[in-house]
């Protein structure tokens, strides 16, 4: 779960690009920087050092969606 008002003004701290909220993994994904930011206890962790690098598979799947 993430606050909708907050989500509407969050961007990736690296690319400043839009974020895609993935409810199944509870992550905020930036496709342009290839990073997924975790949401812990409802608080988005917008730190590059805490982000997960997306796999090539995930990026490909997104492209062909």
């Amino acid at each position, binding site marked *: 779960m993430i*606050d909708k008002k*907050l989500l509407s*003004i969050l961007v990736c*701290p690296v690319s*400043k690009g839009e974020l895609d909220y993935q409810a199944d993994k509870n992550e905020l994904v930036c496709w342009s920087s290839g990073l997924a930011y975790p949401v812990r206890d409802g*608080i988005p*962790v*917008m*730190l590059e050092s805490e982000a997960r690098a997306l796999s090539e598979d995930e990026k490909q799947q997104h492209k062909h969606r």
Partner: protein
Amino acid sequence: MSEKKTTHFGFEQVEVDKKAERVADVFHSVAGKYDLMNDLMSGGVHRLWKRYTIEKSAVRTGHKVLDIAGGTGDLSYQFAQKVGPEGLVVLADINASMLNVGRDRLTDRGVAGNLTCAQADAQYLPFPDNTFDCITIAFGLRNVTDKDLALAAMLRVLKPSGRLLILEFSKPANPLLEKAYDTYSFSLLPLMGKLITNDADSYRYLAESIRMHPDQKTLQGMMDNAGFVMTEFQNMTGGIVALHMGVKP
């Protein structure tokens, strides 16, 4: 072999990429007793400093406010009352422990709807350009590794005419006060820290980091360089604390 770049962590020199980690350890350690320690250390005066900051912010109904290094949420709580249901307050802190304490406290005080939390680094703010009417950073800039980078990031996410307020420990104007303050902060402060949180080192860092922070004029110059206009500062409690203000052109 090239030497690694260093920066100050209190009076100690540490590698630039280690400072954030060291600061994080300090705040993980003190988070639970942070409010109590603030009251004891400042004799409750920190509440007056914060109240004055709120007054100078000119925040009103409908505004979007970013409270950076907002920690346990003192300023955010006041702002949430001011912006009303149409506004939004984002409580941001790089430290998860501080943010959790802040969030729980705000929930206990019945704040909801217009106040939200994000874990973020002041140097790399996760918001679009021209988003906020006001940004505050209270007792936080001191701990940021690259202050120029942080000032540039704050300028970027402020709306034109938006206002930045920096509340921070500074340099006492009077040499006598400075001497008394030195004695207090280098002897009494770590002792209080040891008694209350069993952590003298964190409070020694606090005292040292205050001495390493740029003085009033230097910080104002850094704000000018970052691109803020109408920059000014006001000393409080004889310059132990200063409130710096600047506007995005």
